């Protein structure tokens, strides 16, 4: 099998790189193990340098509408965090006071949406809150099994019964000018959040739940669909087992599912993520990159990996694959000619990109540009 470019890792940065390259006429493949950081995406980008038109276009062509409006977002714990860019159904506010009176709606028996924390947080900002629970017979089937009341399962049901939810909220609504709902809408049917907003005579805000993130999974589905529509080959549930490198050039990789085949390409992109995604692996002695054996910037003394205070910045999160200025990955001190490292496998090494998601997108685009000779 031969491609122009092969991308190892199917998360946000892998897909952005894949889409950009396909759009430019390349033939590419993405090798993905499955789950990725989009499954716990907050739906917002904390900061990006500018309202990059190129990013918004790339996403909107995939059906992921973003809006740029620097301000704050409401967190699931009822606090506010700065954010600049977000998915369309996730609101950004210039100030935390987004309403006078708020109705917070949860489902009876759902423990992954923190209505009491939300109410407390909003009241601290001077908003009056009322919390109500919907008792929906349609969710009863989920409740029969004690661990089924989770975001994705509920979202599947909501895709069918959202109109009924709108009706019930209209009955509950008194003089509130805003309604806060859990982000469990629009998993399969992407129009649902907008239609809910149209159906409720108050501002509707979707607040996060415990992972998995429904807007994150929807983003993943849409980006992947777009990539495949552009002709990309998304190899799902597969992983690279070997790489062939000669004279500073990556020639091919072999995967678990296609072990008889050499997957060849002129260019490779490593977008395997951080520790959670196993893009970086730590043992008691070192942090290493398992696919190509690249050079990783880390501290020798394990005592220096951690800050004993959990809430503080953790040094290990800054460890990552070393690259040259063009994002070409280093192996044994020298850049590999055709391998680019992007996203979280770089560690939190590029504060100029603002956030992990920002770093994922911007490094992916930068690598795609290099490959395309732009």
């Amino acid at each position, binding site marked *: 099998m031969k491609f122009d470019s092969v991308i190892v890792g199917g998360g946000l940065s892998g897909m952005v790189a894949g889409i950009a390259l396909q759009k430019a006429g390349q033939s590419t493949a993405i090798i993905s193990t499955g789950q990725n950081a989009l499954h716990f995406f907050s739906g917002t980008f904390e900061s990006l340098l500018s309202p990059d038109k190129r990013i918004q276009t790339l996403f909107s062509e995939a059906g992921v509408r973003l809006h740029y409006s620097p301000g704050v977002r409401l967190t699931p714990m009822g606090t506010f965090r700065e954010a600049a860019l977000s998915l369309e159904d996730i609101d950004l506010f210039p100030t935390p006071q987004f309403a006078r009176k708020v109705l917070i709606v949860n489902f009876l028996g759902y423990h992954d949406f923190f209505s009491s924390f939300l109410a407390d947080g909003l009241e601290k900002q001077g908003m009056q809150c009322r919390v109500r629970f919907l008792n929906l017979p349609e969710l009863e089937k989920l409740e029969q099994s004690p661990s089924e009341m989770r975001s994705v399962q509920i979202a599947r049901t909501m895709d069918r019964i959202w109109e009924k939810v709108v009706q019930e909220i209209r009955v509950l609504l008194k003089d509130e000018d805003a309604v806060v709902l859990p982000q469990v809408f629009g998993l399969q049917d992407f129009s649902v959040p907008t239609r809910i907003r149209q159906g409720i005579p108050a501002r509707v805000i979707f607040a*996060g739940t415990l992972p998995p993130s429904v807007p994150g999974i929807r983003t993943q589905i849409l980006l992947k669909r777009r990539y495949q529509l552009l002709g990309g080959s998304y190899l799902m549930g597969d992983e690279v087992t070997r790489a062939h490198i000669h004279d500073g050039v990556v020639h091919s990789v072999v995967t678990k599912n296609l072990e008889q085949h050499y997957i060849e390409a002129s260019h490779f992109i490593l977008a395997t993520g951080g520790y959670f995604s196993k893009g970086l692996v730590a043992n*008691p002695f070192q942090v290493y990159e398992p696919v190509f054996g690249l050079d990783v910037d880390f501290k020798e003394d394990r005592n220096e990996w951690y800050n004993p205070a959990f809430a503080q910045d953790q040094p290990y999160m800054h460890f990552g694959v070393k690259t040259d200025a063009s994002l070409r990955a280093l192996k044994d001190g020298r850049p590999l000619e055709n391998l680019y490292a992007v996203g979280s496998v770089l560690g939190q090494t590029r504060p100029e990109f603002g956030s*992990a998601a920002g770093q994922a997108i911007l490094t992916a685009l930068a690598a795609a540009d290099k490959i395309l000779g732009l």
Partner: protein
Amino acid sequence: MNANEFDVIIIGGGITGAGTQRDCAMRGLRTLLIERSDIATGATGRNHGLLHSGARYAVNDPESAEECIRENRILRRIAAHCVDETDGLFITLPEDDLAYQQTFVDACRRADINAEIIDPDLARRMEPSVNPELIGAVKVPDGSVDPFRLCAANMLDAKLHGGQVRLHTEVTGFIREGNTIKGVHTHNHQTGEDADYYAPVTVNACGIWGHHMAEMAGVKVGMFPAKGALLIFAHRVNNVVINRCRKPSNADILVPGDTVCIIGTTSTRIPFEECDDVAVTPDEVTLLVTEGAKLAPSLSSTRILRAYAGVRPLVSADDDPSGRNISRGIVCLDHETRDGLKGFITITGGKLMTYRLMAEIATDMVCRKLAVDKACETAVVPLPGSEEGSYEEVAKKIWEAPTMAQKAAASRMGSRARRIRTGNKRDDALICECEEVSVGEINAAIDRMDVSTLTDLRRRTRVGMGTCQGEFCACRAAGLLAKAHGCIERERADLEDFLQERWKGNFPIGWGDTLREAEYTQWVYKHVLGL
């Protein structure tokens, strides 16, 4: 009589304090237990949870060995729901002296411990995880005991006998009249309230912190803080306790407990200032993993869940730098005869295994002082939850065809699991999926077991003790606690404390899956949840 007056005040909510309170309360005394933090936060909750047969001490400390085996038999009866009757092996490896085995077995028999030399092949069949290289094995009646459960059950029984408990309350000073202790000044860290309590006798049962408590009362008890580090592995690798058949040394006991197993320990003298915040060092981790793999080789590839350390309250006798040659013996001091200070006694030394005996000795002393003539019954009366046999029998008795979660609840609460609301979808919803803890069980703990924080809840229900180390169940449980206590702000801070507590046990072993989990948690809590 005044509501602030009691017959006896017990300082310390570890197993010694809880056991002493139970014994005193069963003998008809009006008791108050004061604990500055939560139950079982000191050495009680920071050891192997080994139900010693006494075999470990048989050669060097026959007195302790005899105490252990007597208490071992008693605990199997009175604390059935806290005990897992696993049996134990003492294995000889090629590098050990096989001749020691006979010395060991002889000493065990002298102490009335049923130690039986078995064929190494039988040992391998009994415990498939054991190092297959073993050249000798002795079977002994070891087991495991859940110290949190044991402590909570003792305290609960004390309360059922009219005892009162003040958790998160610190003794800030003693009320003295001449050379008599009349009571204590206290400060509640959660409500901020100060209160005085009075009793003719006060018992110092503070473990290693008893050193300072005695100082505050004006007497000296020379204690020896000996830190022991342990590791919890994410699977129950072994079903039988594995010990090394040699002189007691580092990391030579592997104990299965619930869903995990625990290797330990080390023994290092530490300064008193470090007792409040003992950290496990990378060197200790390396030693524990290396030595542990000699007992069960698969440990070297098993995920480590947590590292923790406890401080043994040994009473110092000489300058032994390791602390290992000091007797684990029980020390009960009557400060009236020893120091001329009336109304104050110290109970210390000993170990988790002999807590009941320590409590009996201390309570006998209290009763003598109060001229109360009532016999101790704690060796025969089962603890609440332990009246109806093993948890499997209990679960069947309560539910006929119990679910996994109901069985898990019965293993944690024994017959008191009957009080958990269950059988409907709202109460059966799982909060902690690793340990199968339901809404009903959490609410039962909040209602009846003095839970004020998530960490308290963890000690009583195992919420957050499993593989994910509280990733999501902490948030869910925080929601229930917030509802029960009606204070969101406090709960948010509590959640932060819980995460910090968790990280403290994770970073010393921060690599592999532990680091993956930590990165994920950092990300979720900081960026997604916005804590």
